């Protein structure tokens, strides 16, 4: 009978995970590092986070001001376009809703920008409404530089290239401007559940 129960447990586990793993993805337990360039050395004494673009006056926080903002701890599944998914990852940071509080803008799109020149475009509706955070802790520890620390963007419902490492701000825009990968083959939106990996997907 042991044979039967082992098989049954295995099948249940597959069903449970498949409802959380988008098409074409596989689950990893480690945390792969993908990088398009050298890891920037970020000095928090000189770090700022800025919201600029379609806004009367840019809004800017120093690290000290940013760290004093109300924070949230969220547990989310993440999905990389290179086909790995990692379940139940735990992050701490500031909700974009908190950062956008009181801001009036005609923008419908955003460009997230980072140290090292990386950019990625995300519709404004996809980073507001409790869908995106600016995070500085992973798994209860300060975020390591190779994973985008000290501070990275986090928008887990889209492929993970949208969660820009070493983030420095959000540019609010009326029109959509493709970012670093979106301008060279990768999808403008990047919904893992619709497998929007490349142009035309």
């Amino acid at each position, binding site marked *: 009978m042991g044979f039967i129960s082992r098989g049954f447990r295995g099948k249940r586990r597959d069903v449970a995970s498949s409802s959380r793993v988008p098409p074409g993805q596989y689950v990893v337990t480690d945390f792969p590092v993908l990088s398009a*360039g050298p890891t920037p050395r970020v000095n928090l004494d000189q770090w700022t986070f800025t919201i600029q673009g379609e806004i009367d006056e840019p809004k800017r926080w120093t690290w000290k001001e940013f760290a004093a903002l109300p924070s949230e701890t969220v547990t989310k599944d993440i999905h990389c376009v290179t086909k790995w998914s990692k379940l139940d990852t735990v992050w701490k940071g500031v909700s974009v809703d908190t950062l956008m509080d009181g801001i009036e803008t005609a923008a419908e799109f955003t460009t997230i920008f980072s140290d090292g020149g990386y950019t990625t475009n995300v519709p404004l509706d996809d980073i507001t409404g409790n869908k995106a955070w600016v995070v500085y802790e992973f798994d209860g520890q300060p975020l390591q530089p190779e994973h985008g620390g000290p501070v990275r963007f986090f928008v887990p419902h889209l492929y993970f290239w949208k969660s820009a490492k070493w983030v420095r701000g959000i540019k609010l825009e009326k029109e959509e401007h493709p970012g670093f990968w979106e301008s060279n083959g990768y999808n403008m939106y990047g919904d893992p559940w619709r497998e929007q990996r490349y142009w035309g997907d």
Partner: protein
Amino acid sequence: MTVEERRLDGNAIGGLLREIFTMEMTAAQTTCAGCGAINAVGRVVVYADAPGTVVRCPECESVLMRIVHGGGRYWVDLTGTRCLEFAEG
């Protein structure tokens, strides 16, 4: 391994460039649109584990090429390479 330890030289994309240009390209000369440095493809800096392949200038770290391969297509951005010089095949 750290990101720096996984950084490769241009020989790592010899195969990829041969698929695209259908000839050996590691001896081709790139001129960086950022700083003007001229380097053989074999000497440039490659980050191959990003969603696409990112080729950078060994002098100034500017992006020379971005190559994405997927879904049966290639996308090749040479904006950062002002000139690519190579011998006839």
